């Protein structure tokens, strides 16, 4: 008993906490330290220029940054429409006996490895999108604004659709659970005022706007950070016009994944890649802060 008082066994457990804390600190530290050489040389220039010329050691990854933001934003728009729609369908219209199947299917979808989505996106989704959406639209004269698709169908647009498909199950689940959690007496109050189903649903969505924001932020974070699936369908081509979404391009994550095998060959390239990762780190930090301040626990 006396020994225990001096050496509380429980104190030893804090070692586990220290390891976790240390690992997060180390990750952040390494990112900063490894980016320093190129920050010291070029400052913020790589963020606003689009050059990738390892032979001359010139690096500007605006094209990838732009690609990431465009893919993630497009993905967010599609996925919000899909997740709100499917959550409302689930909570307000779907008969109880179908709910179990649909819920399990969506939960399963959220747990399928992203690289499997990537393979499906490359072999199934890309050709379908090219034939039925991208080619007809660019034939219609939109190619001026969105570019022409390649034969493979890999493009920034394809990546954003695939991302939307991947993040919708989770986003939809967040919204669905909150819709189901609206107390029935609130719902009854709305109907008792003579509101139609459409009006009630509109009000309910306003009521849970914090959850929709949470779903948005979580989806955006996933979409920006997703690597394997995006790298398989985005095309991995340096595309200075990253806003022409039917053309192939790069995102930060796919740039890192794709360029890394060459990085050791050039001194600054490795540091440039760390710098781009640092930018992603800050984007996800910003999302975290938004979630912490305005979001709900998922």
């Amino acid at each position, binding site marked *: 008993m006396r020994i225990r008082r001096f050496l509380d066994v429980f104190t030893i457990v804090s070692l586990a906490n220290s390891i976790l804390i240390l690992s997060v600190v180390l990750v952040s530290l390494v990112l900063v330290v490894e980016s320093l050489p190129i920050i010291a040389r070029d400052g913020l220039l790589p963020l606003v220029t689009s050059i990738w010329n390892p032979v001359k050691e010139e690096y500007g990854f605006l094209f990838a940054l732009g690609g990431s933001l465009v893919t993630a934003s497009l993905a967010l728009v599609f996925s919000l429409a899909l997740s709100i729609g499917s959550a409302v369908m689930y909570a307000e219209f779907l008969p109880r006996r179908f709910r179990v199947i649909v819920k399990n299917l969506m939960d399963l979808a959220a747990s399928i490895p992203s690289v499997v989505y990537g393979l499906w996106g490359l072999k199934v989704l890309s050709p379908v999108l090219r034939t039925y959406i991208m080619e007809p639209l660019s034939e219609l004269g939109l190619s001026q604004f969105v570019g022409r698709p390649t034969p493979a169908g890999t493009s920034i647009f394809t990546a954003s659709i695939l991302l939307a498909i991947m993040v919708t199950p989770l986003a939809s689940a967040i919204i669905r659970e909150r819709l189901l959690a609206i107390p029935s007496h609130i719902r009854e*109050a709305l109907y008792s*005022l003579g509101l139609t189903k459409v009006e009630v649903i509109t009000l309910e969505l306003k009521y849970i706007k914090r959850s929709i924001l949470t779903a948005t932020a979580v989806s955006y974070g996933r979409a920006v950070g997703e690597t394997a699936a995006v790298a398989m369908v985005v095309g991995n081509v340096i595309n200075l016009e990253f806003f022409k979404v039917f053309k192939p391009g790069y995102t930060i994550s796919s740039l890192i994944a794709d360029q890394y095998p060459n990085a050791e060959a050039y001194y600054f390239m490795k540091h440039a890649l760390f710098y781009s990762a640092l930018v992603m780190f800050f984007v996800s930090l910003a999302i975290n802060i938004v979630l912490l301040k305005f979001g709900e626990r998922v």
Partner: protein
Amino acid sequence: MDSVVQIRDLWVSIGGRSILRGVNLEIPRNVVFAIMGPSGSGKSTLLRSLNRILDLYEGVSVKGQILIDGVDVYNSKTDPSEVRRLVGMVFQIPNPIPNMSIYDNVALGPRINKLVRSRWELDNLVRWALEKAYLWDEVKDRLHLPASKLSGGQQQRLCIARALAMKPKVLLMDEPTSNLDPVASAKIEELIVELKRDVTVVLVTHNSFQASRVSDYVAFMYDGQILEVGPTGQIFTRPKNKLTEKYITGRFG
């Protein structure tokens, strides 16, 4: 007699269990009509069948006819939201929409149902409804605060104002005081008596004393059927049914 609500041979079952078994009832205009009975007797279901709130749940089947102000409630051509515009409802739990302001809670019905043409008209309607609900003086300076900031009794009066703002013909009240303290309850009871000038109040209560204090007519329900109906004075002084007598004297069960 001019009846605003007519219920003819109403049978309701939920999930295969029959809850109402052949209810017939006529409710006169501009009275307080109390429905009392022990819990599980079907009084809440009866109330919820009047404005088709029962439609929200799976496995509910309704047979029979209800006419409210001439509208055939369960006719397949009738839009349930049309019915609910004629009929306001106040619930057991005070349920203002918590994230909406006091003003918006009252304005919700008139806005959605396009009862008003101008902002000025809406302001007046909101004020009228809040005054009718004895709430205006307490909230007139903070109409834009969220409704969740009010006390329980105030929230319940806000719900009454919200229902009144649609100028319903009938106001359904489902044990409106069961979650309130005695002072707040007394205020609501006082209000109920006043309300019958503008609207017919159908009040469900398990408290027979409350029924005797506020109502003009009473129906006693037991096991999905109405055992006795009549003017309140008559029922409370000369009940015909043995069960009614037991219930009102508090010797029930």
